[in-house]
């Protein structure tokens, strides 16, 4: 019954995976006890794959990728089980110099708030050139040429002017484009996009998503796309993982998961969307709240809110098992009908 995620969801390419996280458990010690932020998280991002990580605030999406790039504050967290491989290397075995070589060159992160990710006192051009020269042995002029080219790729009409500007002189959408340019500037194998468009308007968001998608497809870059917005993930990602309270609850090809979700949580999440119901009709909310991760309940973490739960769900946390075309962590998966389908959702 137990099937490793990687066996079902073998990435199609022959190249080694960009990121493999195997059974990672991670906690943050506090005076009140340890907050179990991640529990047995297994994720594989293949070469040239675009993968979504979906879930509500506090479910551990960002912690997962920040652990992989070792961006969590050192000494404030404990890895209690599992391993991480970033292009076959263990980030926890690297020293600071190695890490800095890896970040930006092999893997880049695009953060949600572009203003706080850019240095406010340095012109855009200098910041871009600095990143390029940190990782590539090129002359200043060469680096500037690369920077201009990549800004042009981001549909920035006057790269010269933007490079002379300070971050505060640009709009939010423009700043985010600069950050994407910076992330792609050293041709990394993996881009981690952590809610890159949440602070932006839909019109700007569509442009930003297109820019990320087109460039990633063209250069064969893998992308981990973190979002709470299922609609955005459905438009962008080949595959997705649904997270709840620090665990993966369902994963598989985007269409398979969203057309026939098996986990009650994924189903409920889709039913909450106003897109699917008659105007003014009652929306289905998920009763209760997420469990306290200082003292999580026994068994399945979703059990206290789950209409399908029985004694088995109490006894033991469910492990990942196959469902049609994808995998799901639910004891009741055989009795639960995939009650909502994307085809219904389009009514």
């Amino acid at each position, binding site marked *: 019954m137990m099937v490793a995620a990687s066996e079902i969801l073998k990435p199609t390419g022959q190249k080694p995976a960009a990121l493999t996280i195997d059974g990672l458990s991670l906690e943050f010690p506090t005076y009140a006890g340890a907050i179990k932020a991640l529990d047995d998280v297994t994720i594989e991002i293949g070469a040239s794959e675009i993968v979504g990580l979906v879930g509500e605030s506090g479910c551990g999406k960002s912690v997962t990728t920040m652990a992989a790039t070792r961006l969590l504050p050192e000494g404030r967290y404990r890895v209690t089980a599992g391993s991480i491989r970033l292009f076959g290397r263990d980030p926890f075995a690297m020293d600071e110099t190695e890490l800095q070589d890896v970040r930006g060159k092999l893997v880049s992160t695009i953060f949600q708030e572009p203003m706080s990710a850019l240095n406010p006192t340095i012109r855009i051009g200098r910041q871009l050139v600095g990143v390029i020269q940190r990782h590539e042995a090129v002359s200043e002029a060469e680096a500037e040429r690369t920077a201009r080219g990549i800004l042009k790729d981001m549909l920035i009409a006057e790269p010269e002017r933007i490079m002379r500007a300070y971050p505060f002189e640009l709009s939010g*959408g423009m700043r985010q484009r600069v950050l994407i340019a910076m992330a792609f500037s050293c041709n990394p194998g993996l881009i981690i996009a952590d809610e890159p468009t949440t602070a932006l308007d839909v019109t700007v968001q569509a442009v930003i998503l297109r820019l990320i998608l087109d460039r990633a497809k063209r250069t064969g870059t893998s992308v981990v796309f973190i979002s709470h917005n299922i609609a955005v993930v459905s438009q962008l990602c080949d595959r997705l993982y649904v997270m709840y309270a620090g665990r993966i609850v369902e994963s598989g090809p985007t269409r398979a998961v969203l057309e026939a979700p098996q986990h009650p949580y994924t189903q409920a999440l889709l039913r909450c969307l106003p897109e699917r119901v008659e105007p003014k*009709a009652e929306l289905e*909310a998920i009763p209760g709240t997420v469990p306290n991760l200082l003292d999580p309940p026994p068994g399945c973490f979703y059990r206290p809110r789950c209409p399908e739960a029985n004694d088995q769900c109490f006894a033991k946390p469910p492990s990942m098992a196959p469902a049609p075309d994808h995998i799901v962590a639910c004891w009741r998966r055989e009795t639960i009908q995939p009650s909502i389908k994307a085809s219904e959702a389009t009514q």
Partner: protein
Amino acid sequence: MTTAPLLNVEDLTVNFPIPGGWFGRATSHVHAVNKVDLTIRPGESLGIVGESGCGKSTLVQAIIGLVERSSGKVVIDGQDFHEARGRRKREIRQQMQIVFQDPQSSLDPRLPVWRLITEPLHVRGGMSKAALRARAAELAASVGLRPEHLDRRPYEFSGGQRQRIAVARAISTDPDLLILDEPTSALDVSVQAQIINLLLKLQRELGLAYLMISHDVSLVRHFCDRVAVMYLGQIVEAGPAVQVLDSPAHPYTRTLLATVPSLKHPLPELAATRVGELPNNRILPTGCYYRDRCSFAAAGCDRLQPLVEFGDRAGTVSMSPPDKAAWPRSVRCHRAQAGDI
């Protein structure tokens, strides 16, 4: 349709001066809201959608008097809000309340819940502490908070619970109109559903009218009877929410809707999303405000576009200005009116 409007906004304009000249004198203005007309009838919900910077927040803040209007009228229940003075102005003001986007910053962290909820009544005065507490308990129950919550402070609550507190505070003065400024955009979808259900329930029970600002088109389609689309401080299209959002007429509304993420369609191609940036609102464009970004721009677009009714009832019927915004469907584009698009 014959009920008297609850809120009537006529020709509302807000300009912010930009100091820069000698002694800080204004050299130019930001034209945030440009001659907006709108009407809300009792018990009705109107949604306002548009990109950031289109003036939707300034518009509602001018309506309730949080920012100074430059010209125009706000009439609520037949009374001119900006002309009223003193006690009468306060009374009119209490018929409109607002729920802000971020319950983290809109609730005083030092006050217990019962004081937060009854703050507007406390300001109005004339109620004893015991009466305020009793009223707080009623209000808390109506938004789904439990009695034991009354003595807690905001930091002890989740985002959804905090937004319930903000709603309870807004309905404490028995207002007729609630202004909702992105009430759920700081919340997760499962919590958003709870708050939206609560607001719909309160509307049924109390006959509240809502004016909701949102960038979430599917939420507006679900929640609102009518919708107005704003661009550069103007309403460019208005009408019944389902009609406008399912078959938009104005080129801007079309672009906006094409870029809304949805489970129903794939990510639009770059060509469809290249709308450029919002033009500078210090110098208003001549003619149609959307002309420079519009792919349908043609001869005649250099004339200023009026908001005109179109569809079945289009024609020469002259209506008095207060009825202007109550028209079933209107659009500010001569090509859409002519059926060219």
